[in-house]
């Protein structure tokens, strides 16, 4: 188990470096900070001086090494070109709202997916099963940003039940959280349903039933536990996708999280902040993947020996 985790961990650290390098290359090397930061009438000498001052005239790898050293040793992501404050300060402010949104969405999606998936598998081809499949189909085809707008129109404008944007109270969280939950709901439902269908046809379930175990216990204790394994793994793997969905959701609802920060920074060409968000997102994704790998190996020992 320890070798397994060490192996995965080294791999994850390598991935983190590659991701940070690619984004560094894309942002700083293809985008031109001098044209972003200097006034339009700056001449060549000004630009050269600026590049020298900020070390932008050095080779790419040197710049990248310097940047990563500052990030890793001091947690210093550089200074935002627009807000003129350290990027890590902006990140710190935006981190909690994004986590709050992601966690709420994950809870909603799981709470809906598990019961619906179970009922749908147990009462196969019933009304609820067909309704579940319909929900899956609809949410899979629904663009998040559009669903967000539709929810704003219905619950914010027509019914006036919930605020359309902002982040002052828990009420503000409801619409964005449901929007983001709809993003991961279809896959989760499918997984619970197919997992249950597979498990329920196995011999040990028949044995349990033959022993006279109550059906409720068979479903909850014997079947669900095993059917949950793919859900656990996928929850970890799809965390990156969830953060991607958060970018979309936050933009539509003006939610003050990392996603909106990233979108705004990309628009304004505020590369240090974009770079910081990319590294933070990648870090979260990698940790979540790692946690899922370890959890899966822990639940199902066969995985370790693959």
């Amino acid at each position, binding site marked *: 188990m320890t070798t397994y985790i060490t192996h995965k961990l080294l791999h994850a650290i390598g991935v983190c470096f590659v991701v940070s390098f690619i984004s560094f290359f*894309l942002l700083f090397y293809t985008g031109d900070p001098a044209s972003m930061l200097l006034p339009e009438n700056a001449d060549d000498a000004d630009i050269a001086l600026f590049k020298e001052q900020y070390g932008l005239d050095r080779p790419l790898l040197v710049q990248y090494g310097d940047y990563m050293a500052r990030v890793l040793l001091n947690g210093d992501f550089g200074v935002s070109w627009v807000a003129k404050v350290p990027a890590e300060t902006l990140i710190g402010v935006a981190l909690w709202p994004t986590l709050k949104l992601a966690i709420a969405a994950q809870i909603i999606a799981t709470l809906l997916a598990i019961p619906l998936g179970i009922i749908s598998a147990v009462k196969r081809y019933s009304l609820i099963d067909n309704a579940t499949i319909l929900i899956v189909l609809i949410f899979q085809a629904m663009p*998040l940003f559009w669903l967000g707008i539709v929810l704003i129109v219905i619950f914010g404008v027509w019914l006036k039940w919930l605020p359309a944007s902002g982040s002052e109270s828990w009420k503000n969280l409801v619409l964005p959280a449901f929007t983001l939950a709809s993003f991961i709901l279809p896959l989760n439902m499918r997984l619970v349903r197919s997992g249950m269908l597979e498990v329920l046809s196995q011999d040990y379930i028949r044995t349990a039933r033959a022993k006279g175990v109550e059906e409720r216990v068979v479903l909850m204790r014997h079947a669900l536990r095993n059917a949950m394994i793919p859900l656990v793994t996928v929850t970890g793997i799809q965390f990156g996708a969830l953060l991607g969905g958060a970018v979309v959701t936050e933009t539509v609802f003006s939610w003050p999280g990392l996603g909106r920060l990233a979108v705004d920074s990309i628009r304004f060409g505020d590369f240090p902040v974009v770079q910081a*968000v990319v590294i933070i997102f990648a870090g979260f994704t990698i940790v979540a993947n790692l946690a899922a790998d370890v959890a899966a190996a822990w639940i199902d020992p066969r995985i370790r020996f693959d």
Partner: protein
Amino acid sequence: MAVKVDDIAVPVPAEIAEEAPPSGTTLVLRKMWQLRLGVFGGLLVLMLVFAAVFAPYVATHDPFEQDILERLTPPVFLEGGSWEHWLGTDQLGRDVYSRVVYGTRVSLTIGICAVLVSAAIGCILGLLAGFFGGWIDGVVDFGVNAMLAFPFILLAMTLVIALGASAQNIVIALGLSNWPIFARVARIETRKLREQDFVVAVRAQGLSNARIIFKHILNNLAAAILVIATVEVARSIIRETFLSFLGLGVQPPTPSWGLMVSEGRAYILTVWWLSTIPGAAIFLSCLGINLVGDGLRDLMDPRLRKA
């Protein structure tokens, strides 16, 4: 009371005994009924393709023609709407229906081209990794993991910013960000196929590696790749519309669904349908494409039905 043998009804499987073997048409119809959702999706996709190809004939107005006096007229099913502009007009008085029809071209072209780019990159890398194993496999696996850790939408946005916002660059950005899913499937499947008897047999015949990979293995991969590619077209369309929604996609005044949703958002409090109609177009197209993908999967691998 004695029971006579004659009283016992012997079930005669009449329908089995009398039914003639089903004709070809019956079989096709039966299959279509089994795959009815896929057939429905296929019809949606056909309509989509038709609208894209024959846009000038399907549209009722010039999508660029502005009429400031007719701005923001509601669709025909609302009060004040008329059949002249049956889905209403936008903030510049342009016909919403005609813009939606022309928007089909943008979305379908970008969606399909982006998937072609990522499928090509992903399949080549996956085939090589799965077939040769060793360090190539290690590198590709590492690349796939790195790409999956990259927040997709941020990567696509960064690429678009670096390259400049245009339809062509969106195709490149989406294509370059989305190859890992193809690489992963191609790699796993190739690995399985490599060990199978028919590959061993053609190898024994002395076929070159290139021929084995691109003829025999690719042929057997095609079905799985086609199913993924179909569903990925829908996802690419959604991503393209989101980039356009952010202003990082095709530029105005080109009719693009994402751009239309974005423009309509400014009027959301008063004219709710302006954003909703192009959004519904995105939804219906993706629904159709996904249903076709599901149907194809059922057709090719019945074991996976509704899983």
